[in-house]
Each structure stands twice: as C-alpha cells, then as structure tokens.
C-alpha cells in the first residue's frame, strides 16, 4: 500500500513546532460528566490525556460511556444529552465553552471521526468522489479541479485500487470495507490531528477489518495522526493502541499501556473482560495450545 508522495507535508505543522512530537498533550479530558435530560448521569467524571501521535483505545461494553465520551469530544451528543461538568481541551483550547459554530469548524480540520456504519454517512445518490471533493472544497478551500485530483490522491492513499474509478462510483457499488476506506478519506481530508474510530471495523469481515486497522496504523505512522480507537473488542484495541482505558458504567476503571493492562490487569472487571474474551474465540484455542 503506497502513501501520498507529499505525506511529509500532511503532518500538521503544529507537530513540528512542538519540541517533542508525540509527547505533547493533544487532547485532555478532565472530570467529564455527561447527563441525560431526565437528570441521570451517564458518564461520571472521566479523566484522560492523549499525547500527540499516540493511539489510545477505549474499551467497554455498550452503555459503558465510551461512545458518549467520544461524542462529547466531537460535540455531537444525542439530543437531550449534555456535558454537565469537566473540561475537554484540545491543544489548550477549551472545547465545552465553544459556540456551536466554532465546533463545526473544528470538526474535520482538527477532529474527525468514523463510525460503525459507513453507508449511512454517505449520500446514496451522489458519487463517493464528489462527496469527498465537496468536503475538500468546503474544509480546505480547494478549487473544483484541485479538489478532484486531491480526492483521487486520497482514495489512492487509502489503499483503494483504481482510485479514478472508485471516484465515479456510488456508495451502493462499494463493499463495506471500501466504504469505510472512503469514509476515512473523507474524515482525514482536511488533515485533522485527531481521528476517532468508533467501532469503525465492527461490521466488517475479519480480513477486511485487518486491512482497515492496518490503514489506521499506517496513517498514524506516516502522517502523525493521533488515534482514539473505541471498541468492544479487546483484540482490536491491542492490535492498534499503545494505551488503553477500560470503561465500565460511565467511569474508567483501569488505564495503562495496552501490554500492562492485558497481561497484568489490576481491576477485577478488566480481568473479567479478558477472561470472557478467552472463553470463546481464537485466543482460547491459542491459549490451550500454549498451555500444552
């Protein structure tokens, strides 16, 4: 899989300005509380910091607050759900105090996200290329023709074969894996620093999932993209992330490097998650073999 020839320029300028790329904190979330309209609290004070250029995993079951936390960062909470406390700061800018219009501007250029069901984020009656080019024109101000060639470049960088052909195709003509690649292209079109992948590979075939995870790792390596990977699957997190935060019922119960959390879990819930994971699945068979 080849990358863009100008991938060096794709690295955000700010990363070079920072003396120590990869160490400086890009996003910090402190004491984040999220509540529903009826007053029930769904996220009870979550803290974490994401260094620039890192890949952080948020793991937990549905309802654990991992997705709400990400949506708070994006400013895209469901109607009726609100941030009721805490701070979210991106490079020192406090996001929770931002007016909505400012947040819209940040999305795409600074923050971006991909979700589980790529097809529902694309207009079915417009070619994927035109949709990608539109984002480029709106978010980066490229002229029509420049946007087109840049879009084809991006599609190529996403590992799509014959990008000129893909550009002219409609969403229904593409497989789930290809659509997710297109969506990743759309989300990084304006060169954001932070990409949130919320269950982005859950609906894909395993072989395709492996390729998309690889693409994410490659984007991180070549463009300095910072990743937040949200998943219910410990194995997905372990493959992509260096640190992991374990969510349970709206709180983080354990955090640490992926290796340490998975090999020597301290919290009983993390242990339970790992045991559940090894109860069924390929890791069970592998574990049995290693014990023999």
């Amino acid at each position, binding site marked *: 899989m080849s990358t863009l020839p100008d991938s060096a320029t794709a690295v955000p300028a700010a990363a070079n300005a920072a003396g120590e790329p990869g160490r400086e904190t890009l996003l910090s979330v402190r004491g984040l509380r999220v509540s529903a309209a009826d007053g029930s609290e769904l996220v009870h004070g979550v803290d974490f910091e994401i260094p620039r250029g890192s890949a952080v995993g948020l793991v937990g079951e549905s309802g654990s607050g991992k997705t709400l936390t990400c949506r708070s960062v*994006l400013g*895209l909470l469901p*109607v*009726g759900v609100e941030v009721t406390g805490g701070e979210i700061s991106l490079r020192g800018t406090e996001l929770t105090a931002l007016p909505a219009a400012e947040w819209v501007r940040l*999305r*795409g250029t600074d923050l*971006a*996200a991909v*979700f589980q069901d790529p097809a529902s*984020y694309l207009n079915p009656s417009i070619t994927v290329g035109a*949709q990608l080019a539109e*984002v480029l024109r709106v*978010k980066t101000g490229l002229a029509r023709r420049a946007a087109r060639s840049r879009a084809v470049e991006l599609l190529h960088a996403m590992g799509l074969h014959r990008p000129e052909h893909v550009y002219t195709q409609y969403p229904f003509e593409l497989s789930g894996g290809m659509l997710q690649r297109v969506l990743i292209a*759309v*989300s990084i*079109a304006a060169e954001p620093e932070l990409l949130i992948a919320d269950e982005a590979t859950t609906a894909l075939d395993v072989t395709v999932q492996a390729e998309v995870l690889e693409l994410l790792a490659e984007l991180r390596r070549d463009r300095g993209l910072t990743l937040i990977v949200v998943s219910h699957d410990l194995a997905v997190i372990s493959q992509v992330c260096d640190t992991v935060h374990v969510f349970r019922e709206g709180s983080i119960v354990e955090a640490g490097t992926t290796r340490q959390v998975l090999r020597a879990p301290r919290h009983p819930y993390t242990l339970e998650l790992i045991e559940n994971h090894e109860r069924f699945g390929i890791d069970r068979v592998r574990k049995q073999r290693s014990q023999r």
Partner: protein
Amino acid sequence: MKTITGALRTRAGLTAAIVLAAVLLLTVIGPLLAPYNPLKYSAEILQPPSAAHWFGTDYLGRDVLSRVLAGGPRSVFTAFEAVGIGLVMGVVPGITSVYLGRVYEWITLRVMDGLIALPFLIFAIAVAALLGNAVQQAMLAVGILLAPLFYRITRAAALSHANAQYVTASQLFGASVWLVLRTHVWSKILPTLVVTTANATANGLLIVSSLTFLGVGVVPPEPTWGGIIASDLSYLSQAPYGPVFPALLIMATVGALNLLADAIRDTSGDYGRARILRKRGARRVNLA
C-alpha cells in the same frame, strides 16, 4: 381499535369525532325530525331564515331545513357505499398481489394503472348514462375509481411487511399465507387503511355532492345536499343564503373526516413515531 382510541385522545381527533357523530345522527334520524314535507311546495318562496323556516325556503317554497335533513341519508350513505366498493375492490387485490405470484401481481397492477387514468366525474357520468341515471350506478363508478387508491396504499404497506424477518420466521414454521396475513400483516396495515378510508370518505362525499349538483344519479324532486346547492344557486341574487346551509354541512363533514384522518395518522404506527421524532428535534448529523 387501538388506532382510533389513540386519535380520540387528541383535541383535533375528539372534535372531529363529535362533529361526525352529530352528522351521522342527523342523517339517521334527520328525516324523522324534518318539520315539513321536503317535497311539498308552498307559496312562500325564497323566504329568508325565520322561526318557521330556520334555513328559509327555496324557489318552490319548500323548507330548506327539511330538505337538508331528508337529503342526509342519500348524500352520506351513498358516499359510504362508494368507499365500501373501493375498499373491497382495492384492499383485496392490494394485499393478495404481494403474495399470489407474479402473473396475478402484474395483472392487478395493469388494471389499477388503467383505472387511475380515468377521470372521476366523466367516468361516473358515463356509467350513469349507460346503466341508467340512478345513484347506485353512479356510486359503483365512484367506488371503482377509488379502488386504485386503496390498492396502492395496502399494497405498499403489505410490501413493506411481506419481507419482514418475522414473516419469514412464521413461514418457516409452516404457516400458510392466510395465517401470516392474519397474525403479522393485517394489524400493521390497519392504521394506514383507517386513515385512507377517512380521507376517501371525505372525497367520496365531495364527489357525491358534485355529481348530484350536476344532476347525475338523482332524479330532481328528491333532495340531496349537492342538488339543493344546485337548485338554490340559480336564485342567488334573490336569496343569497340559499346554498349556505347545505354547503356548510358538506364542509363540516369533509373537514371533520380529514381532521380525524390526520389525528389517527399522527397517533398511530410509523407516522406517529416519525412525528414524535420530529418533535424531539432528532436530525441527521453531518460529521465530515
């Protein structure tokens, strides 16, 4: 039943139901309440409304109130008759077209396409001319022309549920088409059907009034709402209030039917849910 009781809990639904109940009561017992013989001439022609003649009298001195009351059954029940014919002729092929194979489906579709192409009034007048100028014939024509409406609505509803997984599950248990229809499909079509029927009845009433206004299907001395408007219209300069009362009655009935249809639609099934979502301000979020 649930679909209707839900609608009655809204203010619009309740108002509509009360108006309709009153109209229905008037049409059933109206002829008995008529203070005068609706066909009897008198010398007091074109009288304004008074204590003796609440709605005044027409150009032959007949009591308008009595004529409106006596014309009720003709006007309302003929509309019911037309809608009933439309229901049967539309709903049965509408549902079965989804389940009884491609050939049957193709034939029903083409027949309905053909019917849609016919203009209402002209077809009704032609049928009445062909079969004799009686209200039954005219209503048969109107009913046939209402059938495509019911066909389309029920077919669309049945189509959207025919391939539901729970229908497949039922078929995998060995259920016959009839059993699947009864247990899984019918209850989902019903709300849409009730809404359409209410709307179609309103339309039917307007068509009946239009036809009788034009003199199709009813032989003159016999009173109908449309006919009363027509006869009074010629004397508008002398008695401007003449057509007002029957026209108001038609308006109120049609309005109430449509209001009821809206109320049912808003409180039942998919429409209801969609409206609730709209109210909560749910929207699609563009993340690009």
